[in-house]
């Protein structure tokens, strides 16, 4: 550690350090590039903290295991990349309907299928929202630096615990494998949220009866509160039902408890937006190129700025709309063929021209490519 308290840390390592600071005590996973270091370091560190690490037979099992670990009261996480993320989708839906807090890290690589195992991509943006079937809540955060990975994985746990829902931590190979300086925080300085527990007697506990805030208190298995957990649509007791009214109410509550609280966790960065006529919207690794591009364009007297969502789901509709009110042109730069672009266009097209800058060759978009696409000099 240097005099200012900084250390050279890898993105994946920061993810584990942050998760441990957040209180992660259970990890189940199946190693896959470029996320493997997360499993490796978790395996090394969890036992020393009284936690448990288990390598499962595959990603279906990994996702199932963290749901079990969380039901038993532990803060639980898994980490994977595209192919594994696909396999986890069914059980992510199970966690959503059974309201089990958990964190799923996806360090994105080139796809589809096994694709480009060691190369960065951002092709799983839509999958992070719509990967599992049925209407369901979706929270996804996407960091762009090692420091932010450390700090926002804590927020991912907090959101999972608070809203009782799976949270996707959407990294990319650039951020996961990059090493840069990072400052560790004193655990006492980190704000932690734990799931809400029942205050009633066990025999009075109705497991899926929500409070005013739409979230039911959650008892851990083994604490004497007995209840039923099912992926089938259920009533407040947790037992299956086909009742139309109850079904409609449940699905709407699951979605609303997240969507109606978006102002509580709308994380984003604005860079030189005040007078910007051209706004680049970028996230994760690409946003670093976009920031350099903004500086280059400013030197050419082009009024450019950057809007960078960190909360990528739910979509930051209010903020993007505000950006579009002042921008003439909006460029969405991403390492896919235009996924986040679709959402930006939906909201911003009435006020601005929305363009896409895309790349799927396994390399990070460069600042020069962004500058050129916008019409500046290279």
């Amino acid at each position, binding site marked *: *550690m*240097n*005099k*200012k308290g*900084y*250390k*050279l840390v890898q993105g994946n390592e920061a993810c584990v350090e942050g998760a441990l600071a957040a209180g992660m005590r259970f990890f189940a996973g199946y190693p896959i*590039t470029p996320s493997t270091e997360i499993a490796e370091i978790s395996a090394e560190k969890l036992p020393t903290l009284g936690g448990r690490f288990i390598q499962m037979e595959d990603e279906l099992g990994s996702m199932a295991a963290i749901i079990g670990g969380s039901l038993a009261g532990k803060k639980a996480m898994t980490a994977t990349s595209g192919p594994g993320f696909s396999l986890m989708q069914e059980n992510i839906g199970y966690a959503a309907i059974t309201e089990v807090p958990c964190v799923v890290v996806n360090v994105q690589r080139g796809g589809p299928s096994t694709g480009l*195992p*060691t*190369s960065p991509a951002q092709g799983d943006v839509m999958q992070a929202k719509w990967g599992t079937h049925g209407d369901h809540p979706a929270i996804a955060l996407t960091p762009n630096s090692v420091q932010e990975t450390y700090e926002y994985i804590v927020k991912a746990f907090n959101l999972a615990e608070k809203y009782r829902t799976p949270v996707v931590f959407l990294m990319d190979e*650039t951020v996961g*494998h*990059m*090493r*840069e*300086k990072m400052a560790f925080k004193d655990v006492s300085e980190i704000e932690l949220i734990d799931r809400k527990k029942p205050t009633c007697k066990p025999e009075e506990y109705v497991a899926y009866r929500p409070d005013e805030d739409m979230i039911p208190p959650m008892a851990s298995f083994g604490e004497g509160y007995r209840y039923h957990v099912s992926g089938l649509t259920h009533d407040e007791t947790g037992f299956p039902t086909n009742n139309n009214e109850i079904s409609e109410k449940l699905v709407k509550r699951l979605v609303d408890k997240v969507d109606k609280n978006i102002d509580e966790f709308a994380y984003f960065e604005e860079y030189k937006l005040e007078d910007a006529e051209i706004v680049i919207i970028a996230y994760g*690794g690409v946003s*670093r*190129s976009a*920031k*350099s591009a903004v*500086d280059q364009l400013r030197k050419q007297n082009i009024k450019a700025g950057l809007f960078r969502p960190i909360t990528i789901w739910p979509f930051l509709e209010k903020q993007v709309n505000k950006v579009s009110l002042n921008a003439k042109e909006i460029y969405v730069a991403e390492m896919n063929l235009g996924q986040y672009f679709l959402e930006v266009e939906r909201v911003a097209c009435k006020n601005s021209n929305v363009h896409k800058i895309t790349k799927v060759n396994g390399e*990070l978009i*460069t*600042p*020069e490519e962004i500058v050129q696409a916008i019409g500046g000099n290279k």
Partner: protein
Amino acid sequence: MKKQEIRLSGSGGQGVILAAIILANAGVEQGLNAIQTQSYGPEARGGASKAEVILSNDEINYPKITKANILLSLTQKAYDKYNSSLEEKGILIIDESVKLSGDETFKVYSLPILRTAQEKFETQMVANIISLGAIYELMGEETIDKDIMIRSITERVPPHTVQKNTDAFEEGIRLARG
């Protein structure tokens, strides 16, 4: 200090990524902004391997190198692939086995890195640290203190190889001095 953009290239397994990590780590310990990235193929050995380090007093946004000041190439394949990324008057450090076309504009240091590793240290495994010594020498000692470099090596190589690796680092400095 001037922003340093250093690219290390070789064949997978030669340890260029570790050398880059040691250098970036020393940069942070020195109080600089440092960033280290890499690219490699899916195979564990062989294939092209490339690691990059940027050292700067300023914030580093785009994490990759556009034009390198220093390029290390331990193999012909790596040199052929990456020589165009070196700036015109940049420092080129190559293993003596790498052949040049002769019309390069770079400051060329053709050093017996792989041979020295084998003959003096009886292992190819220190070729990366010999290279690191050469890079350190040619980067200019004012960028990072030598004792910080030594500490960074000590922290990041297997404990039983510390002496061998610090000796290899010194050897790399000597080779670069010529």
